[in-house]
């Protein structure tokens, strides 16, 4: 490894050291860039490159999930325990086999037992969790201690982002209006219609905030991909391809690879589109 002088970059002070990039890593970076742009090609149109990438994704994601599940659950919680001679572990093994029999036509009824077990287990666990955390705690916390709120923030406090008696009352009334709006089977009298309208307004403000955050979240994901395609996910260190090669800036290398792959994909799409138009004619 060659040690070069320190320099300032957009990442702060980074020692420029030439790292050796193996051919395997280089191939990996190419594949990574190709697959990224292949998926992005869907933005133009559904095409064979995208379909190929999509099916590779399906296969690899299920395989990785199954591998991690094997090492994370089956091996420590079942196989190793059976190997130690723990007889009680035979029961989950039997249930598991019965569950897997669902793929057969003759014996698929056997899967009802493990399915009943797991559905009931989740139902029991969710029942208490939702009742305690969502029902009781949330309702309890909605009821404000108005004298204490008034003492701390007054009617309205800009410094505390609008906290105060007004906001506390607005929250309670807004919550009640939303709950009454969800009571769809209630008779729609004039007063009920007004309450329902208030509930909808509160919900729209809530969903608007959600939408704003959703936009932020989605763009963040695209930023992550762009950072990788532009080589900004790692410091712009010098690299050599294999030991003894000329040093090249990693960021420049990645950008060159991205541009080349993009041009190849564009050319492919143009040719494919032309062929399709020709066939349609």
């Amino acid at each position: 490894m060659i040690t070069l002088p320190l320099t300032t970059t957009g990442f702060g002070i980074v020692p420029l050291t030439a790292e050796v990039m193996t051919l395997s890593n280089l191939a990996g970076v190419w594949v990574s860039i190709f697959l990224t742009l292949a998926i992005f090609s869907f933005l133009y149109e559904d095409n064979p490159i995208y379909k190929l990438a999509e099916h590779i994704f399906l296969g690899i994601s299920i395989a990785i999930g199954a591998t991690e599940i094997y090492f994370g659950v089956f091996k420590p919680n079942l196989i190793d325990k059976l190997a130690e001679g723990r007889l009680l572990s035979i029961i989950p093994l039997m249930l598991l086999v019965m569950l897997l029999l669902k793929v057969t036509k003759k014996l698929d009824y056997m899967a009802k037992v493990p399915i009943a077990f797991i559905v009931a287990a989740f139902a029991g666990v969710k029942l208490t969790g939702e009742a305690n955390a969502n029902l009781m705690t949330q309702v309890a916390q909605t009821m404000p201690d108005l004298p204490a709120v008034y003492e701390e923030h007054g009617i309205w406090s800009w410094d505390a982002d609008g906290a105060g008696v007004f906001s506390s009352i607005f929250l309670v009334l807004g919550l009640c209006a939303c709950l009454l709006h969800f009571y769809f089977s209630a008779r729609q009298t004039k007063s009920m219609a007004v309450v329902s309208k208030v509930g909808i307004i509160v919900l729209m403000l809530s969903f608007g905030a959600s939408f704003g955050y959703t936009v932020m979240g989605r763009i963040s994901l695209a930023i992550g991909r762009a950072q990788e395609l532009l080589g900004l996910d790692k410091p712009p260190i010098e690299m050599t391809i294999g030991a003894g090669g000329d040093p090249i800036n990693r960021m420049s290398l990645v950008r060159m690879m991205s541009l080349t792959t993009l041009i190849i994909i564009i050319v492919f799409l143009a040719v494919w589109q032309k062929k399709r138009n020709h066939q349609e004619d």
Partner: protein
Amino acid sequence: MYQFLKRFQSLDRRWVFLGMAISIVLPMLFPVHFPTKVDERVQSLYDRLEELEPGDKVFVSADFDPASRPELEPFFRANLHHMFSRDVDIVIGSLWPFAPPLVTPMIEDLAAQHGAVYGEDYAFLGFKMGNELAIKMIGDDIIKAFPVDSRENVTADLPIMNGIRQAQDFELIMSVSAGFPGTKEYVLQIQGQYNLEIASSTTAVSTPDYVPFYKAGQLFGLAGGMPGSAHYEQLVYEDYPVEGVRMMATQALDVLNLGHLYIIILIVFGNIAFFLTREVEE
């Protein structure tokens, strides 16, 4: 004018996509930095972690995948750096199958930077499937849930797990969560039952859902999306600086500026065109 507005409204969406791509790439190539104020929910999270003493044990649930990496990895790294800097013992687990291969290099990288010893200063228990059932087991008996760790060491034999049997034996729980199962399930299943202190770093999409939990005191801190991670990065690296650190979320926040402006412009111009054409049609 009417024809132009009509055509504008039915603009091929690929031009919109191209505009989105430009609004993401341009600020990356020509960054413009604006300062930002730290959110109160992130400050609250940071302040509580600052109260941790050396030797305190914290459970970190790393529940994210490559898709949510841009939002959560900066927080995760900063969080581990923060706790390692305070000599806090960290036990990490995961409920997402795609998390272990993703977070293992991050954990090892940060542990190496701080000279942390596996099994004494930190441990990675690996992945457990089962959603709410797995969380319930972490609450009841974490040793039974994770009989071996990610390196197939017996969990009960690890020095760091001395005195740890249930979730309530940890000082607090840090949930780095991209969705289901994650923070919400921790709050619903075990926070109330065991009166646990839980904080969350989550994606922007989930943040509005978790604000009620924060306000109700069920979470002591909430870092939402890229801004949350960026604010936390700023706080951590100001007090615990690292030479050459890459504050990825802070840099990404500068890119978000133009992205958001682009969406706002699309909404506004789309509506202007809609109303003007509707007026003409009426």
